[in-house]
């Protein structure tokens, strides 16, 4: 175990199809994100961003390569974890382009659902939810239904949900796409804060020009290959 690594991947490849129809969506991708760090993953449509996110999220199996999560090897040319559902539940947080909150649960239970699914007592799960909602400044909407929240509030709740099981890694799939500049920067501020506060490695897939300057490190992905470069790391305020 290497506690100093949030997520680390080496030579990760993903091929769809066989023979002449085969498409290499990822080609020897390397990436490393430290705990508490927020990195950007950018690239044009069809470059392999989503495929990489799905591999990192353990929803599709890479063709070969190596992945470590929180210092533990989870994939080395084959899955090293028997229960991927449990891996996703306990060790990976997901933030989607749209918040995708469960419409029939109130804000607190949307966040508390993950700890509950992990077997934690309801009281403990709700306490954790309230703590996160307070940290994200939406505790005043704790009893509201998702449909009663603004877009920004919904996204903050989805961030709280992603953090609920204290995962070492959060994968954010264009989390600011539906938001205006101000709200998009606010979300980035929160992600940076949460990454630092909970020592979570966060990968943000985006092509949102508004937030790209906020990353300190950026991975460009093109034709299935990644290139790392330094970002501007512009401050997004307190």
């Amino acid at each position, binding site marked *: 175990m290497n506690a100093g690594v949030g997520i680390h991947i080496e030579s990760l490849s993903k091929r769809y199809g066989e023979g002449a129809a085969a498409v290499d969506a990822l080609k020897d991708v390397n990436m490393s994100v430290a705990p508490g760090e927020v990195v950007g993953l950018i690239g044009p*449509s069809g470059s392999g*961003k*989503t495929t990489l*996110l*799905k591999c990192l*999220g353990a*929803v*599709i199996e890479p063709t070969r390569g190596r992945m470590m999560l929180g210092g533990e090897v989870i994939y080395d040319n084959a899955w090293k974890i028997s229960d991927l*559902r*449990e891996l*996703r*539940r*306990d060790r990976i947080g*997901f933030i*989607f*382009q749209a918040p*995708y909150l*469960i*419409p*029939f*649960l109130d804000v607190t*239970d949307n966040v*508390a*659902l*993950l700890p*509950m*699914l*992990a077997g934690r007592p*309801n009281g403990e799960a709700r306490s954790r939810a309230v703590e996160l909602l307070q940290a994200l400044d939406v505790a005043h909407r704790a009893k509201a*239904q998702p449909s009663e929240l603004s877009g920004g509030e919904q996204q903050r709740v989805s961030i709280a*949900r992603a953090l609920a099981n204290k995962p070492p890694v959060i*994968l954010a*799939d*264009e989390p600011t796409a539906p938001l205006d500049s101000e709200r998009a920067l606010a979300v980035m501020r929160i992600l940076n804060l949460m990454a630092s506060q909970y020592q979570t490695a966060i990968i943000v*897939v985006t092509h949102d020009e508004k937030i790209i300057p906020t990353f300190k490190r950026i991975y460009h992905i093109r034709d299935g290959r990644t290139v790392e470069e330094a970002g501007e790391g512009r401050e997004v305020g307190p």
Partner: protein
Amino acid sequence: MISLAGRDILHSWGKFALTGLGLGLLIGVTLTMAGVYRGMVDDAKVLLKNSGADLWVVQKDTQGPYAESSSIRDDVYRGILGMPGVVQAANVTYLTMQVRKGDTEVRAMVVGFVPGGPGEPGYLVAGRRVTRGHYEAVADVNTGFAVGDRLRIRRHDYTVVGLTRRMVSSGGDPMVFIPLKDAQEAQFLKDNDAIVSERARTALNPSLNRPGVPGLLEAIDASQTSNRNVNAVLVRVAEGRSPEAVAQIIRRWKHLQAYTRAQMEEILVAKLIATAARQIAMFLAILAIVSAAIVAFIIYTMTLGKIREIAVLKLIGTRNRTIASMILQQALGLGLIGFLVGKISATVWAPAFPKYVLLETGDTARGFLIVMMVCAFASTLAIRAALKVDPATAIGG
């Protein structure tokens, strides 16, 4: 762990309530159909019970008087009365007809009975028993008649002197009880014009109108205008005597058919209403299939409407069995709402049916189990669809 199904139902309670209401009305119809069958069986049993008879003596080789027509001479009862073990024997006639009251008509079974004998209505809910030999009637309350009403049966008017309850034919028609002689006349006699024509026809027949045989024509005319037939003799046997043993003696020596109550019940339930029962069974099967299709369609549609949420739930680590359980619970919840609505509806509208609808607790319990099983079965389609959802669809392109 929170109940995802319960929360979803609460969240979209309006949709659930309306769907449950629609399903419930269908279940109500199903329960009512079962109640109609039970009512028919109960009517048959009550008909036999209220007649107060242990044996039904009818024409040989018939299954009368209810399932088939039967005609026997009205003096047969005297011979039966003299048999060992027989306490009472009385003639009865049954005739289903339109009974008129003013300008209105009611379909009823007119029963001719001997006051004080088997076949007389067991109890009255209003008025008194028939005390005169002619033109008085006791009617079942379902006829809609009241004490003091004047009824017309064939050529004569009758005054309703009493009302009884739950006295209906196996077909569900309410009964009107009149004195036996009146009933015989109503059932077998022709109108005056027909009698005059018949007499003229007889007088023209040289073999019946023989000048050398005085009194022959008059005797024939008299036989044509009097009636000596009844449909059955109801027999009450002495306590401790086997009705079957008495029936065997009647069958052997009187050249008549005699049925015990159990045999008569078999004829009524297994033969007379068997076709109706099969008809109702078909309706029940079709309604069950329709209900299953509706539940399957509703639950499937509701599940398809939540595909994205299900993908997210699966992505964040929800077990398949938790998702399947959520859908199953929703289907069962829908069934429960539907069943409650159906039971209440059936109970409310059952008394308004013209025929007796008997909603039995056993049928209700069986209906509940069937509804739950149908809902569980119907949810499998939606569960299959939900389990096929790829969690990867929650992520981007």
